[in-house]
């Protein structure tokens, strides 16, 4: 029986508050194999770790058990400490006395015996621990960034600047994302294009960035350091090497369809670039609406193109590449408002979503920068903004606050008053949330300098009355019902994840929350990492946020990615499966269920009555195995076990936990 040391942590009062440390230490001293049992107020601290290291040397311990917080928190810390004392890091077991015991059981009479039982189980498991060594896997020195919005662009630039090659994949024909659709940004009223376009050009010209627009990720397999990704680069029907971006094709193209970039307000040609500053400035043919692809006629763009760059026969290109890290920055959509019939969105042309209203300000927008009513083209006298449409709504929308609407509505109100000083702007709000740097001051300017009228309350219904829109609402502070004859109604729609977010999450097996935003590993400690090692997230795909935060997260995620890429080798998972050839009968059911294809058949010899017979057995490739254990559940004879969680250890834990009523 190996010499085991048990160290119980007080964790200040977090554990000691409800667990009698003394009793646990004394009980631990009585467990078989335990030669040392002690405690310390802050085991994870420098002094605490030193206590462990010194005791290992003094008592020449062969196994270490620590009773502390969750292993998900500090298992790595204690493994490092144990390794520094010369012990194999996998000869350590952690009993979760905080999150699973002291914090959830108030009565010491219950918490203490449970703590003892958990330590007993950890000791019985530790006694069966075997030294394990992780393999060193090489790291593909290439990063994949999914999503070409401001977050994706910033991340790609940061990674590329540190010398690694980056593939930036963007679904739309051009990078730029949501920010490209904006006119101005809060709180500085910077023109969105002025601060975004230079970065887009920098991406296009950066030697380390390979830009894949009009492309989508189709399949992801492998694991950190060796992600194998299949990307479908959709056919643009234009040869990029020939195209000069002169624009004659989309001038002459006869067919028009609603423009997604202008949020269906304006129209675009079938051969188009989404917006003038598009990067790459190469148009694409929308094959669903192109007359040639639909009915084999037209081909005007081909005739008109001076560079003969049009190529109707071009096929999608499949790119299969290996990446060391993946950084997801796929951004957000604004919520579909059809569920809010009372506002008349989709019924009346003068009821717009905030993003549509933003497009009116834009010089390359549907109204060339003129803020006018879409019903009659005349400038509005009175504009009513309605906040929290879809946000903070458990009945028909999302139960969270979308964080950016109070600010972008105040910004739009200021832009409106700058363009049309006579026009009245009313904002119905529930709570004004202006928590960023310079945000409150910005909103006060809208109210005081620009005379925007803030009404604390809601709008019941919008009644189209003749030429105008009768907005019936209430100002709850004065308790007065209101009726405002408006020319334009702007709805601050909730920010929601992209429609294809669940599919992408499943593709990369990263978790998402119940709204389908991607889940960070830990909100405070690991905000830009996911639970899947090597996959990072940044920007609004993780939760609604403004541009400053998205860019900050992009930088953070890029830094994390670069630290990983900078490693020569990566430690593979040490707790991997292992097959006992003597016991394995070669049915290979384990190979059928292994999600990573880490198990393969191999030959082995067996002497039967003097004769050497070869037979097939299963074998695990430790480099590919991620240690899930699915093979062990499928193997009847227990021929494959999972190191670090062997069958003996699991049974020992069950026995230890059941030993004490």
């Amino acid at each position, binding site marked *: 029986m190996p010499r085991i040391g048990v160290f119980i942590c007080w964790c200040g009062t977090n554990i000691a508050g409800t667990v009698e440390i003394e009793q646990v230490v004394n009980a631990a001293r009585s467990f078989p194999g335990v030669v040392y049992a002690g405690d310390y107020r802050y085991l994870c601290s420098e002094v605490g770790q030193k206590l462990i290291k010194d005791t290992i040397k003094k008592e020449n311990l062969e196994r270490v058990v620590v009773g502390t917080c969750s292993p998900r928190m500090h298992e790595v810390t204690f493994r490092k400490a144990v390794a520094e004392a010369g012990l194999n890091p996998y000869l350590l077991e952690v009993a979760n006395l905080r999150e699973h015991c002291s914090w959830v059981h108030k009565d010491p009479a219950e918490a203490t015996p449970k703590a003892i039982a958990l330590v007993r189980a950890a000791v019985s498991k530790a006694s069966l621990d075997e030294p394990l060594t992780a393999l060193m896997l090489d790291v593909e020195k290439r990063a994949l960034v999914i999503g070409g919005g401001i977050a994706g662009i910033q991340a790609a630039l940061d990674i590329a600047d540190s010398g690694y090659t980056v593939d930036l994949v963007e679904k739309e024909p051009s990078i730029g994302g949501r920010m490209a659709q904006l006119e101005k940004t809060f709180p500085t009223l910077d023109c969105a294009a002025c601060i975004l376009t230079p970065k887009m050009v920098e991406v296009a010209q950066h030697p380390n960035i390979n830009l894949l627009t009009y492309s989508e990720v189709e399949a992801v397999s492998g694991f950190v350091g060796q992600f194998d990704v299949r990307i479908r680069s959709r056919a643009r029907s234009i040869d990029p090497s020939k195209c000069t971006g002169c624009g004659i094709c989309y001038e002459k193209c006869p067919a028009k369809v609603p423009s997604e970039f202008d949020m269906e307000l304006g129209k675009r040609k079938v051969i188009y670039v989404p917006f003038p500053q598009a990067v790459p400035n190469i148009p694409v043919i929308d094959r669903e609406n192109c007359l040639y692809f639909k009915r084999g006629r037209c081909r005007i763009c081909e005739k008109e193109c001076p560079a003969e760059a049009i190529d109707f026969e071009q096929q999608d290109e499949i790119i299969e590449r290996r990446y060391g890290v993946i950084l997801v920055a796929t951004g957000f959509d604004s919520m579909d408002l059809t569920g809010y019939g009372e506002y008349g969105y989709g019924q009346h042309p003068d009821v717009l979503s905030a993003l549509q209203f933003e497009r009116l300000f834009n010089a390359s927008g549907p109204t060339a920068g003129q803020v006018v009513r879409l019903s009659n083209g005349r400038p509005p006298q009175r504009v009513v903004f309605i906040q929290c449409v879809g946000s903070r709504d*458990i009945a028909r929308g999302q139960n969270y606050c979308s964080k950016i609407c109070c600010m972008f509505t105040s910004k739009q109100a200021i832009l409106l008053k700058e363009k049309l000083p006579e026009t009245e702007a009313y904002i119905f709000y529930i709570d004004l949330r202006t928590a960023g740097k310079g945000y409150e001051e910005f909103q006060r300017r809208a109210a005081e300098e620009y005379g925007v009228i803030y009404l604390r309350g809601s709008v019941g219904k919008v009644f189209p009355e003749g030429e105008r829109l009768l907005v019936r609402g209430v100002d709850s502070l004065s308790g007065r019902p209101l009726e405002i004859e408006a020319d334009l109604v702007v709805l601050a729609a909730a920010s929601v994840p992209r429609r294809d977010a669940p599919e992408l999450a499943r593709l990369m097996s990263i978790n998402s929350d119940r709204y389908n935003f991607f889940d960070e590993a830990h909100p405070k400690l690991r905000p830009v990492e996911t639970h899947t090692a090597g996959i990072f997230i940044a920007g609004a795909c993780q939760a609604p946020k403004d541009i400053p935060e998205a860019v900050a997260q992009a930088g953070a995620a890029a830094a994390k990615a670069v630290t990983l890429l900078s490693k020569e080798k990566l430690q593979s998972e040490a707790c991997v499966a292992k097959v006992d050839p003597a016991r394995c009968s070669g049915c290979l059911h384990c190979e059928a269920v292994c999600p990573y294809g880490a198990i393969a058949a191999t030959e082995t010899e067996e002497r039967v009555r003097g004769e050497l017979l070869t037979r097939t057995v299963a074998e695990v490739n430790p480099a590919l195995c991620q240690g899930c254990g699915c093979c062990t559940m499928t193997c009847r004879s227990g021929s494959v076990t999972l190191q670090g969680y062997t069958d003996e250890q699991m049974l020992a834990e069950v026995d230890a936990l059941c030993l004490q009523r």
Partner: protein
Amino acid sequence: MIFSESYHRFIDELKKNTGQDPNQCYQCAKCSAGCPVVAAMDLLPHQVIRYLQLGLLGELEESRTPWICASCFTCAARCPRDLDLARLMEGVRLAVLRLREGNRLSPADLELTPEQLEKLPAQALVSSFRKYAK
């Protein structure tokens, strides 16, 4: 006195009968904004909920609002907190009828001409007596 002893008994009874909890409301006033008969109300619908949250039962007793409510469910259909104010309003009406005053409508108070009475659908009489008398 905001939270008197009788308040807790009243609110628990109200919650049990209506299945609604006034504390779920964050006072966005969408109900008041959409209510078709709000003009005739002394307390706006969202203020009725606020009074329930603060336990101002005396004022609720005097208010005309519960008797102006036509139970048209517009507020409940649009409430972002999924609160059924129509049920809460009925809860207040029943509380006043049962605990305080007794019936608010009797055949004698109807000021309807015989000719109006003849044209008025039976449904109107049944509804108003069911709402104002127990």
